[in-house]
Structures are given as structure tokens and as C-alpha cells.
């Protein structure tokens, strides 16, 4: 009888611990999606280089949908150079792997660069890591939708 009560209590604790972990995971994933919207999409649209500088790690690397590889400085220069940028995203999901997260989504980017209008539509895969309580983007891939 006592054994049964102990087992039930233990199972209850495990279930509650698991539920707390799931809830924490969902909270972090939600926070990352918000960070994508504000730290990336909004920052690019508003040409907020300060915000981009904060969320991109110094070793950030981006591969764009033309297969070009850019580092952080090149991304900031690109955003600064553009006359106008409009960046919309949908179908965003975040997957947490410890202190690493993968965020994916479908994007539509259009704007004017060096006097030429351009439009891109594709899927992105972003990698984020948590460092000292702060999430930083370390890599991003954009690829056209087939």
C-alpha cells in the first residue's frame, strides 16, 4: 500500500515536472518567434541596424537564395544600402534543442536596391543560440520555394 502511494507520488512529480518543462519550452519558442519578428523582420524593414547588430552574433553567417554567403558586416551593409525593404514572414515555427533553436518560415522580401526593384519568395532556416541569457542568431539560410 505504502509502496503504491510512493509510486503514485513519484509519477505525479514526474508528470508535473514534464508539464513544467513543456510549458517552459513553449515559452522560449514563443519568445524566439517574437525575436524573429522584431529582431529580424521589423529591424530589416525599419533599417534598424542597432537592433540587427544586437541580435546577430559576431560570427553570423547568411546564405541567401542566390547562394551568396554574407557575414554580419555584409548583411548590415546590405540593409543600410537598400532604399526600401519590405519583409513579411508566415508559417513560422521554432524547435528548441537545449540552448540552440531552429526557426523556419516562409518569407517574401521586396524592395529597391541600387535603383533596381527586386522581389524574393522563399523559405528561411535560422539558427539561434542562447548565450548568457540572450538569444543570438548565428546562421541563416534562404532558399527559393520550388
Amino acid at each position, binding site marked *: 500500500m505504502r509502496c503504491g502511494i510512493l509510486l503514485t507520488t513519484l509519477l505525479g512529480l514526474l508528470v508535473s515536472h514534464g508539464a513544467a518543462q513543456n510549458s517552459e519550452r513553449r515559452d522560449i519558442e514563443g519568445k524566439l518567434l517574437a525575436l524573429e519578428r522584431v529582431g529580424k523582420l521589423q529591424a530589416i524593414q525599419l533599417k534598424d541596424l542597432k537592433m540587427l547588430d544586437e541580435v546577430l*552574433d559576431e*560570427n553570423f*553567417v547568411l*546564405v*541567401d*537564395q*542566390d*547562394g*551568396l*554567403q554574407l557575414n554580419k558586416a555584409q548583411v548590415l551593409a546590405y540593409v543600410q544600402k537598400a532604399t526600401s525593404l519590405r519583409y513579411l514572414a508566415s508559417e513560422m515555427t521554432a*524547435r528548441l*534543442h*537545449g*540552448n*540552440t533553436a*531552429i526557426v*523556419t518560415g516562409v518569407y517574401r522580401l521586396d524592395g529597391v536596391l541600387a535603383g533596381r526593384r527586386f522581389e524574393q519568395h*522563399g*523559405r528561411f*532556416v535560422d*539558427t539561434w*543560440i542562447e*548565450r548568457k541569457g540572450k538569444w543570438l542568431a*548565428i*546562421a*541563416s*539560410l*534562404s*532558399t*527559393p*520555394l*520550388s
Partner: protein
Amino acid sequence: MKAILSLIFLCCSPTILLRAQQTDAAPSGAIRALEHEWVEAQSHNDNRALDLILDNAVVYVEYGQLVSKADYLLRIKHQDPSTDEIVMEPINVRVFGSTAIVTGSYRETQRRAGMRSLTRWRFVDTWAYKKHSWVLIAAGSATIRD
């Protein structure tokens, strides 16, 4: 006893041996080896090796579409290895604690109905260190446009 041990040793594929060794190797070297092993496994329809390389929650983007691990393994299982050839070009590995970003390019030759096509791709792979080994948690590539 010796015979049993020998049998176990013989049954161990290079994949398993490599995974056992990678805990002692420098992360960058282990990841480079795994990238090579991934290409080899794919070209030999080695789903057992691929199952160990890919995390169950891997985010894999192929031609702009999200592909689950199960769908990827199914495709590889039925793929004729003589139709596609992948030649890796130099890669770059950046390690961020228990996360690693690999960027690089590769040439893919496809043979269909007597026709041969060559495509160059730039990729971004994300690896995470989980339970004493590195696993692929995200991968995708974009065609390099000349």
C-alpha cells in the same frame, strides 16, 4: 568469448566506430568527418548510418520544401545511387559550444533520361551535441547562381 568479441567487432560498421571516437576528437574534426560520412551514406543508400546522423526533429529543406526525417530516409532508400553524384568542396566549421554551423558548397551531377545536369549548391548545416555525439538538427542549401 574471444570469438563473440571478434564477431561484435566485425559487426561494428565504420559509422558506429566513428561515433564512438568522436567524443574524444575535437568538435570541428568530428563534424567534418560526419559531413563526409553523411555524403557517403547518402550515396550508398545507407539508411542505418543516416538514421544516426540525423536528429529525429531535424529540419531539412530540399528545393524550398520542408522534408521530415522519415520522408528523407524513404527517398534515400529508393534512390538509385548511380543517377546522382555529389562532390564536396571546401567546408567551414564554426563551433559555438554545443552547436556547430557548417557552411560550404558542393557540386551535384544528376543523370536523367540520358541527360546530365550539373548544379552547384551552397549549404548551411547546424549540428548539436546531444547525448555524447553530434547530430544534424537543420540543413538546407541554395543553388549558386552565376
